[in-house]
């Protein structure tokens, strides 16, 4: 039972327990704002987790992951503008769009590697960014407000506490799911491909298929995060798939610890809280954040979770 005693296990447990306690704490101090803040943190945590599947376990440096955040948000925005309010329909559209787009862009992008892959994923995200900007009937570059949240029947997302615990449950499920995925045979092949693609090919694995599958799964999870984000902010705009948003997702993953289970969630928490604190001090908070990101890149190779010793047997 090395896992149970490992510091990483305790970090995950404490983080999740703290997240679970936020609604009660926010109510106790009379600051419902904190609940919205941590909702945002969990949603970005989910998005970062999905990028971690692609980046941390698949070794694919995607600089356009926010594209799927935007797809999820636009699935909600466009359908509710057209009068469709069922959340299940929104979810189905978001997932279908994510699968379609990620299959198409993934197949082309994965023909390249290294620098070219980074730039192509970035360019595809930009392509959809400009597509969203040109959708004048859906708000153009200003974006659109979402009059009605996705209607999930028994789960009224209008109720913040219900919304909070729904997202929390989803995050826990995603963490469990990604752990199972990474430790499965599929995950082994994927990680093997990350460390040495040529060797995996020589062993007879069709590596492209494995990578593409991971890329599509990551896109789907991120689209769900986008759907949640649109419901939280009541807004969908091209800004959700801006290149800077993709960059922030990468920062979250690397800051928390690439290729670790809890890293993305920890990274999202730290980055968004840091933004919150810096904004309180100065309008020009980015002038502080920029160099911090630079330092993270230069110094903290393994991220916060990576600093804690891994349980025996490596992996998670």
């Amino acid at each position, binding site marked *: 039972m090395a896992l149970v005693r490992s510091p990483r296990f305790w970090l995950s447990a404490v983080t999740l327990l703290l997240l679970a306690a936020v609604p009660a704490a926010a109510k106790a101090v009379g600051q419902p704002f904190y609940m919205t803040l941590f909702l945002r943190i969990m949603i970005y945590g989910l998005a970062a987790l999905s990028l971690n599947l692609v980046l941390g376990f698949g070794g694919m440096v995607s600089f356009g992951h926010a594209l799927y955040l935007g797809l999820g948000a636009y699935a909600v925005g466009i359908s509710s503008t057209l009068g469709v309010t069922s959340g299940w329909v929104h979810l189905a559209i978001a997932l279908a769009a994510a699968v379609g787009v990620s299959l198409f862009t993934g197949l082309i992008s994965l023909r390249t590697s290294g*620098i070219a892959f*980074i730039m192509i994923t970035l360019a595809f995200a930009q392509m959809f960014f400009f597509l969203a900007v040109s959708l*004048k009937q859906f708000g153009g570059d200003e974006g659109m407000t979402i009059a009605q949240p996705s209607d999930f029947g028994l789960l009224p997302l209008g109720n913040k506490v219900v919304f909070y615990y729904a997202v929390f449950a989803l995050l826990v499920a995603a963490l469990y799911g990604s752990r199972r995925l990474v430790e499965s045979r599929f995950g082994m092949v994927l990680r093997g491909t990350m460390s040495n693609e040529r060797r995996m090919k020589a062993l007879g694995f069709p590596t492209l298929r494995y990578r593409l599958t991971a890329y599509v799964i990551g896109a789907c999870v991120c689209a769900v995060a986008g759907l949640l984000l649109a419901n939280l902010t009541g807004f969908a705009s091209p800004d959700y798939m801006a*290149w800077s948003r993709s960059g922030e997702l990468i920062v979250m993953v690397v800051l928390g610890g690439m290729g670790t289970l809890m890293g993305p969630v920890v990274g999202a928490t730290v980055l968004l809280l840091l933004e919150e604190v810096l904004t309180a001090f100065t309008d020009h908070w*980015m*002038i502080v954040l*920029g160099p911090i990101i*630079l330092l993270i*890149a230069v110094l903290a190779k393994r991220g916060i979770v990576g600093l804690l010793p891994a349980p025996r047997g490596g992996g998670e």
Partner: protein
Amino acid sequence: MNLTLFFTQALNGFQLGVLLFLLAAGLTLVFGIMNFVNLAHGSLYMMGAYLAATAYNKTDSFWLAAVGGIGGGFLLGVVLQQVALRTLFDRDHLDQVLATFGLILFFNELARMIWGASPYYMNVPEALSGAVEFAGISYPVYRLLIIGVGLTVACGAWFLIQKTRVGMLIRAGASVGWMVGALGVNIKLLNMVLFGLGAALAGLAGLMAGPILSVQAGMGEPILILTLVTIVIGGIGSIRGAFLGAVIVGMVDTVGRTMLPVLLRQFLDRTVANAAGPAIASMSIYLLMAAVLAVKPEGLFPVKNG
């Protein structure tokens, strides 16, 4: 279709292409030789534009503006490389992306603090503000100057890389960097100069773009992304690819934007064409890039001797 409009747009497209080349040349060499992803290249362009515009507005001399833009870009590039980026040359691409992403945020905010959030304007110098008439087309002199400067730089870069000893070392460094170092060449100095030259070209692009665009924080990113598309289409590390890729991207983008809606109107209902035209036009270069990659993942004009 209106032929004059087409030629004017083609010239505009060529001019954008030449501007893109100024950025792509530096970026592609740094990619190809140092294996370094410098997303902050767009920030160097922005700083070059701000410095040039400030110098011009203070002194009213375009020559001093040129010194500010190009010299400022060069110095900034060298300092940046020595202070922050040098340690990242041997790292993997992810660290480089992350570090330069941080730099973009830093420079955008810095520009906002120094010059304010609203656009900063730089006028076209008096002597260059006229227009040239030929074959029934009237075209601004300043835009022709941009084309001229770009072509001069392209020829200069070709000469430097293909015909001089420094160029030979650069090409050798692109193939096997440590081997050139082992042969007694100061590869670090070479890299520093090369990085600085790329930054100076970015500053030059900023100087030239200043009077025709508004200079503002964040102006570097849209053009950086166009430049990345250019490099991918042209083939990473190749100056020739950068030039041809830049012209293709500039043409497709500009001509597509004006001609596609007109063209679509011939086949489609007017309202549909008006809605679909701009959407397809703004996506066109990305579709082009996707098509190029699907056929030739290494780009259209890859380095032959690399």
